């Protein structure tokens, strides 16, 4: 006796959050069943493994059908095929687009469309995330990137509008898109200690202050690209290092601003010249695309490392 066909369709689509989690994590049906058995669900409910298998299959099938809609979340709201309460829909979308930071850290700033199978394989082994899940992550990034790439207006708002994500998740995606667009190098060994959160924070500040919109919100408000003029202006900061007077002036201004706020103020004051030179040099080079990509590497080399060598207790940026 073999089961040829086994389905369950509810008027309200049944969604088991635990199974959804397992599906998102890329487990196969059989792996998911094993994991569910381990969770002790059989003892709690008195079900058999066969029941669990059929239930898991069913959910996976539902998720597979839902996936098409999850790719365009606004469709999910209007579609008629699955009757899902709005709160559930939000949860489905949010979980689908949620990502593992370890994975993001691997691909952050990389060209998203080049993710070959082998690359993903490597990432999968490295992070312990299943290949399937890696693919979903990457596809999500690509999809979001593609949709908002050419779009005007606030990056975060665009993402939120087209993918119905929570504010936090939308900001994270904005950071990913921003990094991917500018291809910032984040994979160097020196940068490994930085978490995605650190980069996301930087990205947010950069979007707010360094992009076209930051300069003039009326024209061509693109959040994606750095403002060329601003970078051009940065070049002129060289005078801060070249000109002794300006250097002193800068120093005193910075010191006034930071006095009392910094535990390592004296060390900073002592090293100001070196640090400042490092920063300004990095900034001045930013007109070249390659240097833009290396921004974070340079920053760490020229600014953070000297600081660290002086045993600064916290990372300043």
């Amino acid at each position, binding site marked *: *006796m*073999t*089961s*040829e*066909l*086994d*389905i*369950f*369709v*509810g*008027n*309200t*689509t*049944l969604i088991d959050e635990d199974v959804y989690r397992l599906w998102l994590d890329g487990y196969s049906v059989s792996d998911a069943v094993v994991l569910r058995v381990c969770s002790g669900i059989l003892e709690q*409910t*008195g*079900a*058999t493994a*066969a*029941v*669990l298998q*059929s*239930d898991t*299959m*069913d959910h996976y*099938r*539902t998720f*597979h*059908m839902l996936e098409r809609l999850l790719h365009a979340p606004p*469709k999910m709201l*209007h*579609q*008629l*095929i*699955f*009757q899902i*309460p*709005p*709160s559930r829909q939000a949860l489905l979308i949010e979980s689908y687009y949620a990502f593992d930071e370890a994975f993001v850290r691997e691909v952050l700033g990389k060209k998203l469309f080049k993710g070959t199978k082998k690359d993903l394989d490597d990432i999968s082994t490295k992070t312990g995330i299943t290949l399937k899940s890696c693919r979903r992550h990457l596809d999500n990034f690509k999809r979001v990137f593609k949709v908002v790439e050419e779009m005007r207006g606030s990056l975060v708002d665009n993402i939120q509008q087209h993918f119905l994500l929570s504010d936090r998740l939308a900001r994270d995606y904005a950071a990913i898109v921003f990094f991917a667009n500018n291809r910032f190098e984040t994979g160097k060994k020196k940068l490994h200690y930085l978490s995605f959160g650190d980069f996301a924070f930087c990205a947010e500040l950069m979007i707010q202050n360094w992009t076209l919109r930051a300069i003039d919100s009326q024209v061509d408000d693109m959040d994606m690209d750095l403002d060329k003029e601003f970078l051009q202006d940065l070049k002129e900061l060289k005078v801060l290092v070249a000109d002794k007077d300006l250097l002193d002036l800068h120093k005193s201004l910075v010191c006034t601003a930071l006095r009392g706020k910094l535990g390592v103020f004296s060390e900073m004051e002592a090293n100001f010249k070196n640090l400042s030179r490092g920063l300004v040099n990095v900034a001045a080079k930013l007109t070249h695309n390659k240097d833009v990509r290396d921004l974070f590497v340079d920053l760490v080399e020229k600014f953070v490392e000297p600081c660290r060598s002086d045993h600064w207790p916290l990372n300043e940026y």
Partner: protein
Amino acid sequence: MPGKLKVKIVAGRHLPVMDRASDLTDAFVEVKFGNTTFKTDVYLKSLNPQWNSEWFKFEVDDEDLQDEPLQITVLDHDTYSANDAIGKVYIDIDPLLYSEAATVISGWFPIYDTIHGIRGEINVVVKVDLFNDLNRFRQSSCGVKFFCTTSIPKCYRAVIIHGFVEELVVNEDPEYQWIDRIRTPRASNEARQRLISLMSGELQRKIGLKVLEMRGNAVVGYLQCFDLEGESGLVVRAIGTACTLDKLSSPAALLPACNSPSREMKEIPFNEDPNPNTHSSGPSTPLKNQTYSFSPSKSYSRQSSSSDTDLSLTPKTGMGSGSAGKEGGPFKALLRQQTQSALEQREFPFFTLTAFPPGFLVHVGGVVSARSVKLLDRIHNPDEPETRDAWWAEIRQEIKSHAKALGCHAVVGYSESTSICEEVCILSASGTAAVLNPRFLQDGTVEGCLEPRLEENLPAGCGFCHIPYDELNMPFPAHLTYCNNCRKQKVPDVLFTTIDLPVDATVIGKGCLIQARLCRLKKKAQAEANATAISNLLPFMEYEVHTQLMNKLKLKAMNALFGLRIQITVGENMLMGLASATGVYLAALPTPGGIQIAGKTPNDGSYEQHISHMQKKINDTIAKNKELYEINPPEISEEIIGSPIPEPRQRSRLLRSQSESSDEVTELDLSHGKKDAFVLEIDDTDAMEDVHSLLTDVPPPSGFYSCNTEIMPGINNWTSEIQMFTSVRVIRLSSLNLTNQALNKNFNDLCENLLKSLYFKLRSMIPCCLCHVNFTVSLPEDELIQVTVTAVAITFDKNQALQTTKTHAEKLLQRASTDNEELLQFPLELCSDSLPSHPFPPAKEHLESASSNSGIPAAQRDRCSSWIELIKLKAQTIRRGSIKTTVTVEKASPMGEGNFRNRSAPPCANSTVGVVKMTPLSFIPGAKITKYLGIINMFFIRETTSLREEGGVSGFLHAFIAEVFAMVRAHVAALGGNAVVSYIMKQCVFMENPNKNQAQCLINVSGDAVVFVRESELEVVSAQQPAANCQPSCPGGEVTT
């Protein structure tokens, strides 16, 4: 030209990409009705086109309006090649044709393609301007309302229940026409969908005409089915109950109906007529009743000529004998005469209803059923479907005579079904023989004079259990005892019925789903040989299904079955039988005895030991079930009778001799080979298996209950969360182990596993009850068994069960069992004191059934067998007087709690924007149905040639069923409704050909579109009403109002 249909195409969304180059679509729409077609402009390059068309107007006959569906086709414009179809929407405009239903259809409809499924949505507005047509000879029947619900719909009142209406239309199946060889699958599917849509429209119109002829205005319990007879054609048939309904419109009348159904139930029949001597029959109806002259009902049925002979079988009682107040004489006889006279006017006194207005059902005789095996032949003239009509007429005739044999003049809970395999077809009909109160039937003259008598003579809660036949002249040997409730009338020991549990029935404990499952192998054969083989097997199947039901019922310590539905399915090489029913313990019937195991070789010591071990296991199970279903019959009944429960085994022997001596009239005896039903002899392995299978049925996990009736007896505090679902399973049998036992085990496991899966899936809803569990078995291929289940899970509140919302009957029961209450019942006890002199065997149970081979000559290749069952009861009695006092006493306390309950109900209703609920029940828990928008009857075909790519058979069917749900919901929403009640998936025919990577599925669903309002929202209104209206609500009671 009495109608103008207006259609406007507003917009589309989520259309599929039809032009690969641009990733866009140039869509336009064709609107077709009858032979007229309109087109919209092409909306270039968009997946979300905004056509905003003008109003397309069709001027049509109302006959066409009823028959034809509106057909909307979305196409992709292509300059160089033919336009590609994206998909279609069929809209049944019937709901717009009667005044009280929807006035406009407006909303988003899924665009459906039979190959690709749903492809985007389209926004359409449809309106109808209907001109009044007073032509007497019209062919249309606009205005007759149709309901799938098998009870009088909420917010309506039955003035008259006219009776049975039936009709069938036949046609050639487009799938089998020669043209099908050259057209695409899509064209073929669409031709079929359209044809069936057209045929159901026609059928509905014809039935409507019959109803108008009977002077009714509605069809309740409308059941329409398709028989896909393959080569020989396509039959669409429908049955229903014609009624004259009155809308309860005033808020005063509406509110009590919703808030205190149990109360209303009690009072309406008795209080409507304050003065028994007048002829008025209650509010708003008397005049109408009088003016309805007696229409000779023959005229509405085609088979009238054939029926005359049969009518003569029954003793004709003249109208005169039934007329007004004859004093004295046994009331029952009088009642029967009167009702008979009313009913005998009808060819078939059948009612498709399963729940009735209070007072309608007087006695229940038992289940009557008839089956007939037919060979299909090509239907030569579709306009004269005589053979099919004659087949059904034959079966109905037989049902009628069975009912007669049970002393009943009517059949309620009536249904018909078919099972087709190749050219063999089994036609089945079943129902419950019953005696009805003529007050609701056409005959106006009996009214008024019967009512007061009713009031005096029928104790609530047990009347329907009393035997309708003559004790001295029983149709079959049955064991009768005095009713445990009133102690005046005889009751059988077990009662099987196809109806829902009457609301006023006194039930102890909870009910449960009971299933009997059976397979029988059969040799492959052709035509006549095949039909003969099947006919020969049928009686044995019936018998065994029956034994199983009986044994399982006893194992559950219950004594009555409701909602019994036996399905016999025929396949190439086997027959399957599946019986589902809800077991309950009726207080009026005697306590069931246990199951006794007997061995044939008592000398062997170890064997004895084995037997006693089994016996112990069975006894333990019974005890456990008693506890599980809270069956604690009050002890007093035993005391009154004064004799201990006789030793069952002894009893059985006694009975055995009785039945042996009695002369069995019928050829087939279902009473277990003249052995007592509850002694199991395990003298061979077969019987051993049976016992084992009895014990392997696992009860649902705690927190779960299941039943196949509308409401679960013993649970009535439903909360508002419902989840309707359909589950389908197909298993492939390995051809090696095809023995009857292996087959039985496979089938049993299939059903049990399916149930287990359901319990697991719905575990988050605990505590909950699966209601209206409807199993359908089909045998699509040699080694495949397909089981389809549709049911609804409803949550209930465990805690409140104890406090507030006991049903009326339960309250009474509780009262009755307390000591003080007994004092009030002294008249009862006085009369019952005289009873113990007779040594009643209250524990004795047996099933007696009479059945007959219909005597149709074998030469005609058909054979009908049927069976009839009977039962008995026992319980506490509460006299009417005490009921009244109890009611008033009880009223004070639940009021406060009831209000509290309403307020504390979770406010989940607010978030249900755009949500359409679906339920197979006739009500929505915690809500009040305010409007019926019309019947939903949809037929879909889906086909694929890329089965693997769509996720295999499971993926294909899963998606299809989800799409069907979506389309039903969309239609309901477009009508302005928010729920479908009495939803049923009548057909789910699935065929696959994995080698060719193909599959096809046909689904037919129906239901009633309604608007409901949450009770919590109603509260605002009810707060202004007198406090009396704020009684705790009890959806259970609503079912039968």
